[in-house]
């Protein structure tokens, strides 16, 4: 239908949405950029002034920023791998019919709906606590040494918590995608002699390629900003072991009150995210074409 139909002007319908998003994007973004070039610390609000690229220089030369970026990449990469691998396995498993399948599937997808603070505290206290946690209980019962998870394996522990929450997400998406698998195609492949693993590798996996890429990209958006789990469990420590970029900026902004520094780091985070976003947008643009 023609866009400029007498019947309806789309302008007023779109305006509020566009307005809200423009405001939420442009204004804070502009301020972040502005502040990043300023010398502004809320603990000494009197000292202000143009700082040029000082903030950036300090940041980029400090190892702390790079450590946090590395941690971010490790966290995101590990969780992505875990969720995709388990997501595929669970999707294939739950596509088969077995007794109580629907209930089992509900149980598997439950963790995704638990709020991050609850997830983190369950893992930290009920499970991983070195004295009273369930894991320590099992270790003692088996005669194995008790592991103080957040002290000895902090990053690993955080990865476990985050992966536990996001594997259900990948599972949910991929299980749904399996439904649209062309059964006739599978039957044709079976008649050609493909069974078991060959069937999976040649038919199922290519079909899942697109949903997997969607899962990866959406998870990227959210995993880059993991925050609550770290705040509640390790507060970035020990040392900087679990400080990702999000937490690093948080510390700068709301603990050290270094507005200038935090803004500069924020700009860097935005740049990083945009690189990922560019890939995402292209894929979704192709999706829109197909519709």
């Amino acid at each position, binding site marked *: 239908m023609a*866009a400029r139909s007498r019947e309806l002007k789309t302008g007023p319908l779109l305006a509020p949405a566009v307005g809200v998003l423009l405001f939420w994007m442009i204004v804070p973004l502009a301020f972040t950029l502005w502040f990043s070039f300023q010398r502004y610390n809320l603990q000494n609000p009197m000292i202000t002034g143009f700082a040029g690229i000082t903030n950036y220089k300090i940041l980029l030369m400090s190892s702390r920023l790079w450590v946090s970026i590395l941690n971010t990449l490790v966290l995101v990469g590990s969780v992505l791998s875990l969720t995709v691998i388990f997501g595929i*396995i669970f999707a294939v498993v739950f596509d*088969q019919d077995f007794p109580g399948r629907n209930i089992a599937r509900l*149980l598997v997808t439950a963790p995704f709906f638990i*709020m991050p603070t609850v997830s983190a505290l*369950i893992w930290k206290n009920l499970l991983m606590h070195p004295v009273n946690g369930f894991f320590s209980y099992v270790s003692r019962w088996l005669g194995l040494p008790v592991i103080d998870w957040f002290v000895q394996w902090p990053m690993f522990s955080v990865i476990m918590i985050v992966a536990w929450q996001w594997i259900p997400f990948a599972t949910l998406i991929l299980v749904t995608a399996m439904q649209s698998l062309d059964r006739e195609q599978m039957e044709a492949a079976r008649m050609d002699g493909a069974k078991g693993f060959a069937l999976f590798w040649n038919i199922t996996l290519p079909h899942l390629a697109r949903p997997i890429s969607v899962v990866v990209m959406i998870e990227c*958006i959210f995993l880059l900003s993991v925050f609550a789990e770290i705040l509640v469990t390790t507060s970035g420590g020990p040392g900087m072991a679990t400080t990702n970029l999000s937490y690093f900026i948080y510390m700068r902004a709301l603990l050290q009150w270094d507005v200038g520094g935090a*803004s500069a780091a924020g700009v860097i985070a935005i740049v990083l995210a945009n690189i990922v976003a560019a890939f995402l*947008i292209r894929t979704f643009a192709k999706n829109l074409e197909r519709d």
Partner: protein
Amino acid sequence: MNNSRNSLIAGIIGWTSAIVMFFPIFWMLVTSFKSEIDAVVPSIFFKPTLQSYFDVNSRADYLHYAWNSVVESIGSTILALMIGLPAAYACAFYPGRKTKDLLLWMLSTKMMPAVGVLVPMYLMFRDAGLLDTRLGLVLLFTGGNLPIVIWMLYSFFKDVPTPILEAGRMDGARFWTQMRYILIPISLPGIASTALLSIILCWNEAFWSLNLSASQAGPLTAFIASFSSPEGLFWAKLSAASTLAVAPILIMGWITQRQLVRGLTFGAVK
């Protein structure tokens, strides 16, 4: 035959993973029914009690935070629907040259890491008197969820064949009539799923709610987070509070699982 063997293997793996994945939640549930003394001993045998549930509210004013969660989630969802529904309608039924770009741009606003604008947001909120207010969080959540809401509604609207609306035009229905009698009744399930997804995302939001709120407007995410300090060692109460905090969303999520996939993947997987 292959099928029953496949079924057996799938059943074993399926149920094992279900038990493993659900165990932490199960453990939380179990702990919530223990007394505090029992709670620190990870045993399966204990005398169940509801004491923790009662204490949760009396000690820490759980209901206040729960109410904040409710108000902020539902308020933001209503606002997002009011703004998003007309926009999705325009994109789905009156697409123009720029529609695709517009939708992609909305998607891109979701990709900006919240932490990147933490500083100006905090200062803006402080100066506008929005820190620790429900209104502030509602506005933030709306802005954050709007792209998902619009894409999800767009995806459901695209499923409604255009000739049905054209038939409505021929019958004499203008915009509001079309909405009321044709479009909304037909896409009601989709609109409901979108609303539920929005509520879930708001309820579980754990960045702005932790940084821009305190005792007045803090939702349950912040409430639970306050248990993370060493004083908050009361695990039975923690479990009870957590169970209460997550139960409604868990149930909501379970009911609408399938439809949520569309919203979570911006319409890419249906």
